[in-house]
Every structure is written in C-alpha cells, then in structure tokens.
C-alpha cells in the first residue's frame, strides 16, 4: 500500500533469478515490479528472497524510504459474497518441450513465439533487440514453424486450430523486418488462416516484404550445428524434393492451451468442460456455463482473438447485469472532486512533468536536462522528472505539486495524448483546476521511439517539443463540459439474429427497445440456415427468439420499415421511421446497427445458367428440405472462395469453409457412398471447427487445393458413361496434375457481401465503412461493437462475416455497451467545441457550409443574424475555423492563438533566447 514504485529495493536486492515475464530469458530480482506497466505499479517479493528462505539479508527493508516492505505478510483468505461470477481465465501457451521433436529447451536457438514476442518488445530481455541467447548476436535468418501444438492429433498436442498463430506470426515477421530490414524470414505453414477483418490484407502485406518466404510444407527440426548453434530444418518441396536448410533461429508458433488448473477451476465452480478442456459452450448463448450465475468470457470459451475476447467480456458483463440489475449502483460511491478554482484571470504559472516512461524515454532522451531546460522557459515556475507519470503515485504527486506551487497550467512531457490525456485531465480536476489546463508534449512516440539511435538530437528535439507545448499552454482556457440527459430507450436497426438477441438483452434490463426491420418478417439470413456445424438447431432457436421478441412488452417491432431521417446525438437521437405503423418519430438514447449482410450472386461457374449449380447456402436449404435430386447425386463438387479473396473483394468471408464442411458431412450422413470434392484455397476451419474438417476428411471427403492463378474451370458435359454432368477441371498442386471431375451437383461458396442498405444507413447515423464496405468499428481490436460516432453501436454480419455463435456473442456484447450508456442519467460532451464571437460574425454562412454535422445555424441576436454553434453536435474538427473570413468562429482548446503560439515556438524566438541568457547570467552571478 505504501510502495511508490520507485525501484530502489530492486536495485539493491542481491538475488537474481530468471524473469518469468520475459520468458526466463533475462534475469530479475527477488523483489521486483512484475512488469513495467503493471497496475498497481508496486514491487513484490518472490519466494527466492533470502529472508523468506533463510531469514537473511533485509537490504530492501533498509533502503525503502516509504517503509513499504512487509516481509512478515502471510496469505489471507477473504470471503466475498457475489451474485454472479465470470470466468475469464484465458489460455496458456502450448509448451513445445512436451514433444521431443521440437527440441525446445535443448537447442538454444529454438524459441517459442511467446519468447520471440518478448525479444521484440522494448521492455523485453534485450530492450527490444532481437538477439540469440547463445551468442547475443542478431539472427539474420529466421524460420517460423506454424501449428506447433495445434491441428495435430499426436499425444499432448491439440486437435483444434488455435486461430491466432497465422496472424501473430505475420505480425512478428513485419516487426522483425522493422527491427532489421535485411533479416530473411521463412514461414513454414499449412493453411494461411487469414479469416479476420482486414487479415487478408495484412497477410498480403507480410508476404510482399522483401526477403520473406511463405512455404506450404511440413518441416522437421533435424539438428543443431555444433559451434554456431544454428538449427537445420528439413522440408519437402514440390520442385526439388527434400531439402535441408540452416537457420540462425527457429520460432515455434505455439498454439493456445486451456488455462492452467482448468479442471480444478471447473470443479470448484461446478461447471462442465468440453473434451478440449475449455468451457462447454452452450451454442445459443456462449457466455453461459453449465451452472446458472457462472459465466464464461474470452478464450475460456475456446481459442479466440482480441475482438472476440472484448465483446464476450462485454456480453458476460451484460448478462451479470441482467441478473443483478435490481441492485445496480448499490455499492457505487460517487467521486467527489474539489471545487474548481477560477484561474482565468491569473497570469500563467506552468508546471512541467517529464516522464521517463521506465526506459522508453530516458534511454534515449536526457530527462534531467529536459527538466532543467523547461525551467528556463517563460512562465514555467516548476519542473520535475517522474519514472512513470501515469502511475497512481505520480498522479498524486502532480496533484500535490499543483496545489503546493500554485500551478495553473500543466505540461506533461510523456506519451501520446491519445492514450492518457483523460487520465491526466482527471489528475488536474483532483487538484481543483480545470482539466483543459493540461497540455501533453509527446516525447515518446514523436521522439524517443523514432530517434533511438540519435540520442543527442533526440534530447534537443524533446526540448523543442516541450517548448512548443509550453507556448501552447499559455493560451489554454478553462472549458466547460456539458451534461446531456440520456433517453432510456434503444433503437435496433435490423431484426435478424443479431438485432433480436441484442434487443432482448437490452429489454431484459428494463429498457424499451424499438426494433426496426425492413422486411415483413424477423429472422434475417439465419432463416436460411437450418443448423450449425456444431449441430445447433438454428430454426428452433430463431423461432424461440422471434416468439420472445413479439411477447416482450418492452420491445416494439416495426415491419416493412424505412428509416427516413436521423437527428440528434448520443443520448438524444430521434429516428423517423415509416413502417406498417405509419410514420413515427422515435426518440432514443442509443442506436444499434445490425442490418446483416447479403450473399454474393455468382456470375461465374455457370451459376444461374445451369440448375445443378447452386450456392452453399442454397445447398444447405435443400439438404434441410430433403431434396431428392440432391440426394440422388453420386458426385458433389464444392468450390470455395467464390466472389471474395480476389481483387474485387479483398477479404475472406470467414464462414464458408465451415459451411461447406457442414453440408459435406450432412450429405455423407445421408448417403455415405456419395463422392464429395471440396476445391479450396486455404481451409479456414479455425478453432474447434478443425475437428469437423478432420471428420470430413476421415469420411472420405476429398480436399483439393487451387490457386488464384489457376482457377477451376466448369462446363456442362458428359462423363464416360454418357451421363450428363458438370465437368470441373482443376490442377492439383501436390500432384501437379489436371484433374477432371464429373459432378452431378456443384455448390459455390459464395462470398458474404455488405447488405444493400449499408451505405444509406451509414449516411443516416453518420458512421463510416471499412475498405471492404462493411461497417467500421471504433477500434478493430479494442472497441469492436462501437462506432467512432458516440451512441451508435454495431453487431452481427454488418460488421464482418461471422458464424452464428460469434454473432450471438457480439450481439450480447453490443447490448452490454448500450446498457452501460443507458444506465447513466447523463453523458458528458467535450468542451473543445466551436463558438462564435457575435461581434465578428458577418453572417456569410461559410462555417455553416463547412460543417458536416449540421452543428451551426443562423440565429437572430440583438446584433442581427449571427451563426450559432450547437455545442452538443459540434465534433471539434475546426474545419469552419479555416473558412471563416473574420475569424469569428473559434474552436476552443485549438484556437488560432494556441496553434500559432506553437508554430512560433518551433524556432527559438529572441524573447526565449534572451530569457535563457538572462538565466545563465543570473546563475553566473550566483556562483561568483
């Protein structure tokens, strides 16, 4: 509790032991901070401590100035009474030491991807330098081996696909080339599973880098070369047979195992695990476990990437909310800030805090000389350095100094305002001054990180950046934020699986939901899907949902609806809807866009010309309907990636591999002797779906790979027996032969494409689209269900193609975020908005035409017609400022004066020079 995270004890502790955070590659002390951005940033003592082992030493206790060392602490048992539990115990990386063939822990330069991740990190064992532990040299030739521990049925390994390794490997390759551009990178892989949003483009980016080879083959680690400790890999090639190649380092792209102690966890909470050791997922609601009140989120549901983890976390939170809504706010304590002092008329008194950011800044920029320089700047009355300005104790220090030194402006020279500005604004509020008196000088991203090799120049630049920020700080003004009331209703656009799930989840916490559906029936695309690969009865679930929606007194459904207009802003929207119920203006606090996606209508492979050619979705429907013509077929061919992963649609539709395998398995179940060929590019059955891929292969479904350079060809023809068939010709890249298949039925895995109304709805709610035409979330990893536009959320396939379970996860996740908004009485709008000085306004309207948010309008004033800004609608972009001929409209916090002050300070003006001279003179006088 008393630890300030100063690190003195770490310096003096005599015990060194391998640091688990850095994969035991480097050493740490027995007393240490877990890692440099740990929260709380305090030291703790490991069992290797000499005192704990032998009652010796006590050095840490004697050097700690805060008296924070407690060597006599013992474990405590605490009993908590809770209404719900969320298990988000994550995963454990696969340990390749369990299989001798990987030689991990034996050959020194065979590392796991987790080891490599730490090597790449600036807080890693070698401060971001990629070095071999064997000789501390840069590896110039690195191999990655994919699917280590995954997609294998060997003992100790996992049969499922871990789903994340393809892309993290590509990231590591890109970062490696960033670190050392001439490193040769070779990736031995099976399928490339770039199924996530923008992943296809990311793969292309990695593949296009010079010196990067993606080889589709199975490699074997053969031996370590004596002396150099390089590693030899043997692999088969299509052209040259079996080859051996030597690498400086081999990275094993390890998969994801269930969390440690998963069985104990399951026993203790009384829940069931699946045979892989993860939570036994309930398809209709993957957040549930087998025990009511215990929820699962993140990778405990199964291997998963960050966005899915984030929205399942939100979804689990939301479901706890449903359970505990009646007690909402019982334990909340309102935060009380000291009263804000009115400083508007005071002359500026600026304090500068320069952050070391551990070693992130201080290893490049001289922090002490930057502090000294800051003190020489006009109006700076105080400056100091801090280890981590963002640490709790540092924030307290800033608050204290503001009060002690009577500061009225604060410059924090640290990182990007994009991450920590809100935190530091809060720090200012704690000290009783307006949060807009904060200015951040970014000496990390803009300086130390990009100039790590030019320390002196970097220090000079850091001083320039600080000087510019100080100049700007002089012009900062106290701004008022607005409390806007929040309307408690929500409006969901789209009555498919995502929209209905989301609507029910929101209504379950007492909110009225308006569900707007463009057609005359609920259900959307899911109506065409009978069951999932995992066997969930989609129709039964959908029927249940539709019934629940209609029966819920708090959900209003609008059929055959058209959205005519959307006005307002977060917490206060008004959407005008024309539907069966007539034209209505619906007020609501939040909007959720769940309009789904469409299926591409193929123009290739005889689709639409020959009735034996159908999409995979149509095939699914015909299987469910027991279509006799389909079951009469002796030979079915399926072609994957129809209409996507091409130049028109440079993305993967994600669901089609699973969908085709589901169809294949159903057909095999109905007619085991049927020949089925699936012509694929990469089979992307990520996660547990891999088991079904294996099952299909075991049941005799043939998988034949094709490449975009050599597409399958399709024509109507007759087979050897004279029967009318569809001839499908494809080159098998393994055999190197043209295969001619005679199909009775051809199914095309048609791409999922953005819904027709995507653009129109985007325009109405003022939200944006990704390059592929699906909706663009606020952050692809961290904010996957929100738009950058406040108060508007998204879920389902409108965001990107996804499986039914994933859609359900995301719908609950979006509901969680919406409920967080709707549970507040008010929302706060930024103070950095535009304002018009009436005296200067000539009512020319230039600002009004510049504003895309309709935030500016004319208003009659005693001085005549003047432009007026609705502060709630203004987004603070300041475009209007650059258009106003009289500078009458002012974007607060980014005023012309503040920006020009910053421009002027890029060069040292005479006044500053004079001050420095004067300071030097004064110092000289004192020494004499």
């Amino acid at each position, binding site marked *: 509790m008393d630890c300030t995270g100063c690190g003195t004890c770490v310096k003096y502790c005599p015990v060194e032991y391998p640091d688990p955070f850095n994969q035991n590659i480097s050493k740490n002390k027995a007393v240490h901070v877990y890692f440099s951005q740990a929260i709380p940033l305090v030291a703790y003592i490991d069992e290797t401590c000499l005192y704990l082992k032998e009652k010796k030493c006590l050095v840490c206790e004697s050097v700690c100035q805060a008296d924070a060392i407690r060597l006599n602490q013992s474990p405590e048992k605490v009993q908590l009474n809770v209404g719900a539990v969320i298990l988000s115990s994550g995963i454990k990386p696969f340990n390749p030491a369990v299989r001798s063939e990987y030689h991990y822990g034996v050959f020194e330069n065979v590392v796991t991807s987790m080891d490599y991740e730490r090597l790449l990190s600036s807080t890693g064992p070698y401060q971001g330098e990629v070095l071999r532990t064997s000789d501390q040299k840069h590896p110039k030739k690195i191999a990655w081996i994919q699917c280590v521990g995954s997609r294998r049925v060997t003992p100790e390994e996992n049969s499922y696909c871990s789903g994340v390794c393809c892309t993290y490997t590509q990231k590591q390759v890109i970062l490696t080339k960033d670190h050392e551009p001439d490193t040769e990178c070779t990736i031995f892989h099976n399928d490339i599973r770039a199924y996530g949003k923008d992943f296809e483009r990311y793969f292309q980016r990695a593949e296009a880098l010079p010196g990067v080879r993606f080889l589709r083959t199975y490699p074997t680690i053969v031996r370590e070369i004596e002396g150099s400790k390089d590693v030899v890999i043997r692999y088969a090639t299509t052209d040259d047979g079996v080859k051996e190649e030597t690498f400086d380092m081999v990275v094993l792209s390890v998969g994801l195992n269930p969390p440690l102690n998963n069985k104990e966890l399951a026993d203790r909470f009384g829940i069931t695990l699946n045979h892989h050791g993860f939570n036994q997922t309930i398809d209709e609601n993957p957040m549930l476990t087998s025990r009511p009140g215990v929820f699962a989120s993140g990778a405990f549901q199964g291997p998963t990437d960050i966005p899915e983890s984030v929205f399942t976390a939100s979804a689990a939170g939301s479901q706890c909310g449903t359970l505990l809504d009646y007690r909402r706010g019982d334990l909340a304590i309102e935060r009380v800030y000291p009263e804000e002092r009115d400083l508007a008329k005071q002359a500026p008194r600026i304090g500068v805090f320069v952050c070391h950011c551990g070693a992130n800044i201080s290893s490049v920029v001289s922090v002490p000389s930057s502090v000294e320089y800051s003190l020489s700047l006009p109006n700076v009355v105080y400056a100091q350095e801090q280890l981590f300005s963002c640490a709790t104790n540092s924030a307290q220090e800033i608050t204290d100094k503001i009060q002690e030194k009577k500061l009225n402006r604060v410059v924090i020279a640290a990182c990007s305002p994009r991450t920590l500005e809100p935190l530091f604004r809060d720090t200012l509020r704690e000290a009783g001054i307006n949060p807009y008196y904060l200015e951040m000088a970014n000496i990390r991203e803009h300086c130390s990180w990009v100039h790590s090799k030019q320390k002196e120049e970097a220090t000079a630049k850091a001083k320039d950046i600080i000087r510019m920020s100080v100049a700007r700080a002089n012009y900062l003004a106290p701004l008022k934020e607005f409390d806007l009331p929040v309307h408690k209703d929500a409006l969901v656009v789209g009555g498919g699986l995502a929209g209905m799930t989301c609507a029910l989840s929101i209504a379950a916490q007492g909110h009225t939901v308006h569900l707007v559906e463009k057609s005359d029936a609920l259900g959307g695309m899911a109506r065409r899907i009978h069951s999932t690969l995992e066997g969930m009865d989609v129709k039964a679930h959908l029927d249940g949902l539709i019934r629940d929606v209609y029966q819920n007194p708090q959900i209003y459904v609008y059929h055959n609806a058209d959205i005519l207009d959307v006005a307002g802003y977060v917490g206060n929207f008004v959407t005008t809807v024309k539907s069966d119920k007539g034209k209505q203006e619906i007020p609501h606090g939040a909007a959720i866009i769940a309009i789904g996606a469409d299926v591409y209508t193929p123009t290739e492979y005889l689709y639409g010309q020959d009735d034996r050619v159908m999409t995979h979705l149509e095939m699914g429907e015909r299987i469910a309907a027991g279509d006799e013509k389909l079951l009469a077929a002796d030979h079915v061919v399926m072609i994957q990636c129809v209409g996507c992963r091409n130049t028109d649609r440079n993305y993967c539709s994600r669901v089609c591999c699973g969908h085709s395998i589901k169809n294949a398995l159903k057909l095999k179940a109905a007619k085991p002797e049927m020949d089925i060929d699936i012509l694929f590019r990469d089979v992307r059955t990520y996660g547990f779906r891999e088991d079904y891929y294996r099952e299909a292969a075991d049941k005799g479904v043939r998988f034949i790979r094709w490449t975009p350079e050599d597409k399958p060809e399709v024509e109507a023809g007759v087979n050897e027996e004279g029967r009318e068939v569809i001839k499908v010709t494809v080159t098998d890249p393994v055999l190197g032969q043209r295969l001619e298949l005679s199909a009775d039925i051809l199914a095309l895995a048609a791409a999922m494409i953005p819904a027709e109304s995507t653009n129109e709805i985007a325009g109405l709610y003022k939200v944006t689209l990704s390059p592929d035409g699906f909706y663009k979330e606020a952050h692809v990893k961290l904010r996957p269900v929100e738009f950058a536009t406040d108060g508007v959320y998204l879920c389902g396939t409108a965001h990107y193609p996804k499986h039914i379970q994933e859609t359900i996860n995301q719908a609950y996740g979006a509901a969680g975020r919406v409920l967080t908004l709707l549970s507040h009485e008010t929302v706060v709008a930024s103070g950095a908005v535009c304002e018009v000085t009436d005296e200067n306004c000539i009512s020319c309207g230039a600002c009004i035409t510049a504003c895309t948010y309709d935030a500016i309008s004319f208003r009659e004033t005693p001085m005549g017609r003047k432009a007026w800004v609705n502060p709630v609608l203004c987004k603070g972009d300041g475009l209007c400022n*650059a258009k106003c001929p009289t500078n009458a409209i002012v974007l607060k916090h980014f005023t012309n004066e503040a920006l020009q002050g910053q421009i002027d300070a*890029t060069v040292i003006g005479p006044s500053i020079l004079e001050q420095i001279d004067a300071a030097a003179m004064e110092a000289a006088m004192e020494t004499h």
Partner: protein
Amino acid sequence: MRLIRVMCSGRVDLEFILRAFTKGLDGVFVGGCEFGGCNYITHGNYDALANVYICKKIMSRIGLNPDRLRLQFMSGADGDLLAEVNDSFSKDIKAIGPLGRGEGEDGDLSTLMLKLEAAKLLVPYLRLVERERLRIPVKSEEAYVSFYTSPQFDALFDELVGSKLAMEQIALLLKKGALSTADIAGKLGLTPSEVSKYVNSASRYGFVKYDTDQSRYALA
C-alpha cells in the same frame, strides 16, 4: 520534423502555413487521412488538398519554392509510410536549402518576408474566394486534382488573387516610406509597367497617393 496536433487536416489554415515560413521554417508538412478513410463524416482532407494547392500557387507567386510544402495522406496504421515520407521530405528540403537562400536570395530575406506578410494579410480574402469561386462540389480526388492543376484554376487565381497579392505587397512596402515606381519594381521584382498598373488601381481605390513633388508613391 516537429509535430503540431490538429483535430483534422482541414483545420490547417493557410495562415498557419504562411506563418511557419515567416518564422523561418524551411518546410511545412501536412499529414491527413486517406481519401475515404475519414473516421467521421467530415472528409476534411479534401479541404486540406484545396488549401495546399492554393498555398503552393501563392508560394510560386511570391518566389518561394512550392516544394517546401508537402501534403501526404495516410492511415493511422501507416507508421512506416510516415517515417519514409518524412525522411524523403527532410532530404528534399535539405537539397532545396535554407529558406530564401534556396530561392537565390543572398542572406537578405526582407523582401521574401514582406511578400509572405502580404500573403498572410490576404488570408481572409482567400477564404472568401475559395468559397465563392474555387470550391468543387464533388468530393473526389480526381475532380480536385484535375481542377487545381487546370489552366482554368490558373486563370481564376490570376484574376482573383494575383493583383490583390501585388497590391498588398506594395501597400506593405509603402508603409515603410514613399517610393518611386522604379524602387517598387526593383524591390518586388516587377516590371515598372506592372507596378504602374497596380499603383493606379490602388490609387483609384484610394489606398495610395502620388506625391508629384517627389515623384513618389505613398500610402494615402
């Protein structure tokens, strides 16, 4: 490269760019989102593009190398592109040389500064001109580029801005004291007949008067 944060590339005012040059900076870089990549509905990068075209025109007009101003559109994920562009821009600026000297001025920047000052004074007028005559209704990169590189734009610029810019420069020059036609022509690098043309219209508007005794022009 020293960075200044604005909330949209369209917020980068002509005055900011000109001001940076008057402070002696050798180059100005404007970074914005890619077209169609706006996270909002603002698409202010089109305004940035228009502003940069107009500014480059002014720069050539006042004898400042327009390559000192560069605009680059990139996404937030294009860190490597930013680094690459910055390196090449810095290299280019170094090759052009320090402000003024790269333009053949030998140490005396007073005329260039006067011309920059004159251009800054025109900014409010330029904003009106942009709105009334130079704005393109379609937000497409192609339309912007084809308009701003067309002879039509050149002609409009000459008609609307050219003479105003010269008159503003003459007015600033005369602030320091009365001068003859030849003096003005020499200082601003104009021909005497151009000077007479501008001074005549300036005196018609009543800004400038002719002192017949000294054969000099002075501010009215």
